[in-house]
């Protein structure tokens, strides 16, 4: 095994984190190789120097500070999550196309119905279609027996529309 491979294991070797067979390989190599023994001495010494440093205690207000920031972050994300058009951004392109077409058809149908319902009474006013059956398209009531409730209703609006002229 090359020195470079052995030296790359020195960190784990010192920390006692090598598998048994790897540890034995390193030890066997160290017995024969002075260069690696020197390098291992340096690694060890570095660990000794670094162990001289102390870390100050963690600031006592750190938990409170993090929790305050977390609470704020959560409430911001709840506000950001409320979006009436959120479904639109989440929808796939075909879904968006289908929704657009449905909306156009709906609007178009609404316009046509609105236009016919405002234009029909004016044509009725010309007298060409003064029968309530034609004006209100109540022909499904046309063959009802006279004297029935629906028949009386038809007779009533016929009288009203004639009176209106």
């Amino acid at each position: 095994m090359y020195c470079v491979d052995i030296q790359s294991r020195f960190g784990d070797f010192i920390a006692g984190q090598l598998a048994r067979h790897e540890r034995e390989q390193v030890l066997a190599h160290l017995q024969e190789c002075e260069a690696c023994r020197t390098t291992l001495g340096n690694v060890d010494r570095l660990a000794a120097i670094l162990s001289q440093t102390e870390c100050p205690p963690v600031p006592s207000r750190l938990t409170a500070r993090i929790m305050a920031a977390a609470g704020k972050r959560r409430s911001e994300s709840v506000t950001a999550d409320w979006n009436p058009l959120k479904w639109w951004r989440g929808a796939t392109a075909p879904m968006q196309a289908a929704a657009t077409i449905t909306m156009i058809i709906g609007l178009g149908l609404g316009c046509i119905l609105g236009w016919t319902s405002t234009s029909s009474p004016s044509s009725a006013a010309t007298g060409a279609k003064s029968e309530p059956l034609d004006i209100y398209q109540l022909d499904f009531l046309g063959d009802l027996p006279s004297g029935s409730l629906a028949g009386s209703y038809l007779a009533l609006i016929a009288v009203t529309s004639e009176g209106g002229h």
Partner: protein
Amino acid sequence: MSDFDISDESLMEAVNKGDLNAFEQLVRRHQSWVWKIAYRFLGNSDEASDITQDAFLRLLDASRHYRVTAKFRTYFYRIITRLCIDHARKNRAVPIDSLPDIPAPGPSQIDRLEHQELESGIQKALDALPPEYRMVIILRYFEGLSGVEIANAVKKTPKGVERLLARARKNLELSLYPYSQKITDDYEGESDDSPV
């Protein structure tokens, strides 16, 4: 059931469902080692607190995507190492001349000041390392992580980590040479004094 009976992974799942108490438990459990990594890396308590807070907020944001497949600590090591390294890249090293002066010593303070000098020498040597070198040194020597664990944290192969460590050690050995001589001398002095 004590707080520590609940695994970090289960707490993360609770956080995902909006449980901020579970999040607070995670903060209390892990803030200390996270802050220490940041402190060793940045050499400044306020910046370490900022980075620690950022790391926990990242964790909170990421809770919806968290999958129990990764061990919590491994996952969090990645967050904190990434934040520290990015921070160091954005804020280039502080010129050593601008570091605060240590006041002149009185006789009783000499030992303490010698130690302070050693600590500040080590911190300066660490600060002078490129960010990735510095991080692998901290994870290895202060956190005691194995090569594989460091590789997971910094998203490199174990071989890559060992190469980084080898280069980082070479740099540090050079800049810490005076201190290493002193420690060796002290050690040999103590051995000579001790009765046989």
